[in-house]
């Protein structure tokens, strides 16, 4: 469906370009014929289906183990699982030899699934506790080793997933301290994602990093003495740091940088949005030991953020004027505990106004960096904020009237700003075209 829509659009554009003399009719036919060929996604379909099949077989084996079927003796089950694992790996070698690399990877994934099922089976036979993190760690190590030795993307994805489950089990067993050991597995996974240069792995690695913070939040709060609000502020500053680091080092890996930038934007905006709806919980802002630890962590992160922001501007990745937007988000985060103590009633409305302005800024930022994601996300933030305001103000008719009046004024001001920006961009493009 998407292919057909794309071809229709392309044909319409090509007709226009032929008319303007940019493309010859012969070239247009060649372009259309090339675009109509089966795409990369279509070519990849068999291997995608094979991997999905491998995942289903893995689940089937695990369910079989979980059923604890008594008709087969324990020893037979163990022998069966060993045999099946070796058969899967043998099949992978054969398939690789015959040039079916993708099917070989699917067989490797089945082998890894059987290894995990083997761990579960032995745990079941000998009544080892169900949430033992050791077994998951062993499985995770096997998956990451496989990803490293065989350059297996599926094994890498499995390894990252298992690292998160490992940290989950570990923190469930002992929530007194954060599960720092996770970061060894994470670092290996991140290095492998870079080595394989596979964007989905970048996504998984970044999601895993933020998930770790969510899973370990209680333990981090216990150890550092942060309040939940202070912890959220630290995560916002981390997200901004990730965002700036992505731009500063985008020259070394543009695809990873684009993914990291996206997560930095989403996490920073999402948490500032959550802060605005939680006024009055910014206790312990700068008092006692917790305050000192928080201030030290915040100052350190702000220093790193400033360095990376400067680097991003110096390397030409970020127009200097856009630093103000990032600085504004950092300021909103840092000011929150103080404002929520001194003027809690004002916080939601001041932050709502700031978020609306920042959403418009994000659209401008995305346009200037050529990031379609930032532009779209800016609109999403704007729409979400307007909806939030609508529900928050919808108490009395007077409140609703104020909301609509303010919203209308904001939209009109916004449209004027956007129109000015559009004219400036069009003028800039025309000048560049003239110079060329």
């Amino acid at each position, binding site marked *: 469906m998407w292919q057909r829509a794309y071809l229709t659009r392309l044909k319409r554009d090509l007709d226009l370009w032929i008319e303007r003399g940019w493309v010859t009719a012969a070239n247009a036919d060649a372009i259309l014929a090339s675009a109509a060929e089966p795409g990369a996604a279509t070519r990849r379909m068999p291997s995608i289906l094979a991997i999905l099949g491998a995942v289903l077989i893995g689940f089937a084996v695990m369910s079989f183990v979980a059923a604890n079927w008594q008709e087969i003796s324990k020893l037979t089950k163990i022998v069966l699982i060993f045999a099946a694992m070796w058969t899967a790996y043998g099949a992978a*070698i054969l398939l690789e030899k015959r040039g079916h690399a993708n099917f070989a990877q699917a067989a490797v994934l089945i082998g890894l699934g059987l290894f995990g099922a083997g761990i579960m089976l032995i745990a079941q036979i000998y009544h080892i506790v169900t949430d033992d993190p050791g077994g998951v760690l*062993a499985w995770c190590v096997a998956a990451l080793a496989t990803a490293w030795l065989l350059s297996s993307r599926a094994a890498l994805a499995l390894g990252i997933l298992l690292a998160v489950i490992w940290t989950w089990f570990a923190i469930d067993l*002992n929530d007194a301290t954060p599960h720092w050991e996770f970061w060894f597995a994470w670092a290996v996974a991140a290095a492998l994602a870079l080595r394989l240069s596979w964007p989905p792995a970048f996504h998984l690695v970044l999601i895993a990093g933020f998930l770790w913070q969510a899973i370990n939040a209680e333990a981090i709060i216990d150890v550092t003495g942060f309040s939940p609000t202070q912890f959220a502020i630290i995560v916002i500053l981390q997200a901004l740091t990730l965002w700036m680091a992505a731009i500063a080092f985008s020259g070394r890996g543009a695809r990873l940088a684009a993914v990291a930038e996206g997560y930095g934007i989403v996490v920073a905006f999402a948490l500032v949005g959550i802060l605005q709806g939680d006024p009055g919980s910014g206790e312990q802002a700068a008092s006692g030991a917790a305050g000192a630890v928080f201030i030290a962590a915040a100052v350190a992160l702000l220093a790193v953020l400033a360095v990376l922001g400067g680097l991003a501007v110096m390397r030409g990745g970020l127009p200097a004027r856009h630093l103000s937007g990032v600085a504004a988000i950092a300021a909103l985060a840092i000011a929150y505990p103080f404002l929520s103590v001194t003027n809690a009633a004002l916080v939601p409305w001041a932050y709502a106004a700031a978020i609306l302005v920042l959403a418009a800024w994000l659209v401008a930022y995305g346009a200037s960096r050529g990031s379609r994601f930032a532009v779209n996300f800016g609109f999403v933030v704007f729409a979400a904020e307007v909806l939030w305001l609508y529900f928050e103000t919808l108490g009395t008719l007077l409140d609703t009237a104020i909301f609509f009046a303010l919203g209308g004024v904001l939209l009109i001001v916004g449209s004027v700003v956007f129109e000015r920006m559009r004219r400036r961009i069009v003028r800039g493009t025309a000048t560049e075209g003239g110079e060329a």
Partner: protein
Amino acid sequence: MNPRFGMALIVLALAQTLFLGAMIWDRVSLLRSPDVVTLKTAPIDPRDIFRGHYVILSYEISQLPLGTLAGDDEFADGDTVHVELAPDGETWNAVAAWRDRPEPADGNKIIRGRIVYVAESRPIARSLDDGTEMETQPEAPCPGCMTATVLYGIESYFVPEGEGRVLEDERNAGSLTVDVALGRGGTAAIKGLRLDGEPVYEEPLF
């Protein structure tokens, strides 16, 4: 074909096989240990007994009254604890709790566990009228104070699909005890279940 692929895969498969083999060997040697104790299970809320197809077992020694036991008193969440067990009729009871593995008294045995929670202080009493904290007398009895919740790695007992409920009924009909094999370091493994002293589930090595 990548010439390294086959070799790498064989190395991986061998490593995984060795790991699974080591897991089995470890458990089999543990279950062959001559040190076996029988532990009483503690009553637990029936609604929380089953999760899927395994039974959650809780023992009397899962709740250690540190204040009344010999040995060390200062434990924190996550600490390893070595519990000294002494025979008491057909079953074994905790008589001391130590941080480091001690040499047990003659006839006693050591089981190793991990502390998940220590209830250190007496519960705070609040006024029903305005919720303000009420003063409690320091000498007032406090049965739950200094009680450590301990896991020994023998809290899950896997049963065939559909048999969990049957075991629960059997458990309710009599007193359920568990035979536990103890390794040299105090590591524990379930060897079998007994109802009224009679084995109802006995674990073969394979």
